C-alpha cells in the first residue's frame, strides 16, 4: 500500500481533477483508484464559460470550461455526503478567485475529506487560477494561509505556464505544502481559418502534453515532498515514465474522455510493469 503524506492509498493511480466531475458516476472506476480529486470547488457557484468549451487538437484537447461548479455550500450539502460513501481517498480541488477564498472553502469543508488540492493553476478563469501559481510570493502566501486552516494533507497543483515549476514548488513546500501535483493544462488556442477568428483559448491536455509534463515533474523531483505527476497518461507505460521522472503517484485526466474505464486498465498495466515492487516504489 503506497503511503504519501501519512495517508495510505490502495494504488498510485489517481483520478485527476476536472474530468470525472464529482465521481458519482462510474463508481466502479472511482472506487478502484488510489485517490479521487474532485472537480474544482469555488466559494460561490460558477456557471462556467460560454461555449465552445472544448476543441480537439493533434493528440489532445483544448478546454475552456471555466470551473463550472455549484459552490462550496451546495458541495457540502449535496455532493459531500455521497462522496464520503466512495471507497477511495477523496481530495477536494480548491479554486479561488482571491487568496482568501482558499481558506474559506477549506474551513467550510473541514475534516470531512482526506485532503485538499490547491488549484493555483487553472488557465480558464479571469481572477486567480494560474495567475496565483506563476508568482512565488502569491503561491507561498496562498499555501501558508491554507496551511493554517487544516491539518489534512495539502497538495498544490502547479501550472507549466510562464514560470519555473522548481521555484514555485520550493516556495509552496517552504510554505507548508505536503505534496505537489503537476501539470495543469498548457495555455493553448486555436483559430477558425474560414471565419478568420479565434475559436478557443484555453488549456491543452492529453497525450500532446505528456513530454512537457514529464519535464516539469523531473524539474521538481528534488522538491522534498511527494509528487503526483499527470499530463497525457494513457497507459501503464506512460504512468511508469512519470514514476521514473520522480513522481510518487500519477493522475489520469483526459484519457477518461475517450474511455471512462481507462484507469482500471492503467492500474493493471502499471501493476504488471512494476511487478512485485508495486507498493514499495512509493
Amino acid at each position, binding site marked *: 500500500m503506497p503511503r504519501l503524506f501519512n495517508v495510505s492509498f490502495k494504488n498510485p493511480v489517481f483520478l485527476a481533477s476536472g474530468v470525472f466531475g464529482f465521481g458519482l458516476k462510474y463508481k466502479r472506476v472511482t472506487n478502484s483508484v488510489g485517490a479521487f480529486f474532485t472537480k474544482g470547488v469555488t466559494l460561490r457557484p460558477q456557471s462556467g464559460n460560454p461555449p465552445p468549451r472544448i476543441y480537439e487538437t493533434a493528440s489532445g484537447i483544448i478546454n475552456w470550461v471555466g470551473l463550472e461548479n455549484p459552490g462550496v455550500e451546495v458541495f457540502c450539502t449535496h455532493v459531500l455526503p455521497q462522496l464520503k460513501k466512495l471507497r477511495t481517498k477523496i481530495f477536494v480541488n480548491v479554486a479561488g478567485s482571491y487568496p482568501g477564498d482558499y481558506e474559506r472553502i477549506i474551513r467550510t469543508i473541514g475534516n470531512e475529506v482526506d485532503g485538499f488540492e490547491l488549484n493555483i493553476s487553472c488557465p480558464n478563469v479571469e481572477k486567480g487560477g494560474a495567475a496565483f501559481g506563476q508568482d512565488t510570493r502569491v503561491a507561498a502566501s496562498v499555501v501558508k494561509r491554507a496551511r493554517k486552516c487544516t491539518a489534512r494533507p495539502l497538495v498544490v497543483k502547479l501550472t507549466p505556464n510562464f514560470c519555473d515549476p522548481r521555484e514555485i514548488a520550493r516556495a509552496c513546500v517552504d510554505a507548508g505544502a505536503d505534496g505537489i501535483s503537476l501539470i495543469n493544462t498548457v495555455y493553448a488556442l486555436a483559430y477558425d481559418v474560414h471565419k478568420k477568428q479565434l475559436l478557443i483559448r484555453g488549456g491543452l491536455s492529453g497525450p500532446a502534453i505528456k513530454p512537457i509534463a514529464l519535464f516539469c515533474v523531473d524539474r521538481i523531483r528534488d522538491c522534498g515532498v511527494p509528487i503526483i505527476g499527470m499530463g497525457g497518461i494513457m497507459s501503464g507505460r506512460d504512468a511508469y515514465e512519470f514514476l521514473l521522472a520522480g513522481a510518487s503517484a500519477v493522475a489520469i485526466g483526459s484519457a477518461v*474522455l475517450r*474511455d471512462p474505464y481507462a484507469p482500471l486498465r492503467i492500474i493493471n498495466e502499471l501493476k504488471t510493469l512494476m511487478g512485485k515492487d508495486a507498493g514499495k516504489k512509493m
Partner: protein
Amino acid sequence: MGERSMDTMVRALTIRKKSWYNKNTVGLEVYAPRIDPQPGQFFQLRVSDGVDPFLNRPISVASYTGGKLLFIVKVVGRGTDLLSKKQVGEKLTMLGPFGTPITARRKKSLIIAGGIGVAPLYFLAQKLNARGASCTFLYGAKRPEDIILKGHIRRVAHRTLFVTEYGSKRRMTAVQAVHGLKMDNYEVAYTCGPRPMLIELQQLHLPIPVYAFCEDFLGCGCGLCLGCAISYKGTYKRICVDGPVFELSGIDFNA
C-alpha cells in the same frame, strides 16, 4: 430528465454491413441485441486505436430493428473520415447509449430535417410510426444527391416533403418549406440540422412546441467533462446528458 446512474459499457462490435448513401455519407451496421436505444440517444464511436484523433465521435442512432443498430456517418473531418473507412468485419468500439431519450408520443408530428440531421429523425419517425402517430417528414438538403433514405422515410411517414437548395424544381431550404405548411395540422415538431437552420427555425416562432436534437463537439459524452455546454432557459446544460434534445424556444444560440 434524469441522468443514467448505471455505468455504460464499452462494446467492440463487428461491422456487419456497410453502405454508401452518397459520396460522403456512409451507413455502418452492427448487431447489438438488448441495447434498445431510444430516439434522442447516441453512441460515442472510437475513431482510432491511437491517440490522434483523440476523442470519440458522437453518432446518433439512425435505426434499431431486431438488434441491428445503424449509424449514419457524414464525412466532415478526419475523425468521421476514419470512421467511414472502417470495413465490414472490422470492430467498431463504442460507448453508450448516451443522452436522455425522448418519448415518441402519439401526436400529430412534424419532422423537419436538415442535412445529416435526418439520421436521428428517421429513427424517431420509425418509432412514431410504430406508435400509430401521424407524421409529416420534411427534409431539406443542399443538392438532390444529398437526400438519403428517401424510400425508407416514405415507408414510415404519412406525408413526405423533400426539398433542396440547388438542382431541383422546388429550390428552397427546409425552413422556407415550413412556411408552406398549415400548422393547425400539427401538435408537435422535431428538428435536427445545422445550427443556422435551427436559428432560422427558432425565429419563425411556430405555434407548436419544437424539439431540437442538438449536435456539437463532445468530450466524454456522458456528463463528466462539462465540455458541451448549451445555454438553455438561462442556465448552461450539458448537451450529452441533459439533452441532446431541447425545446428550441429555450435555446440561446448567442450565448
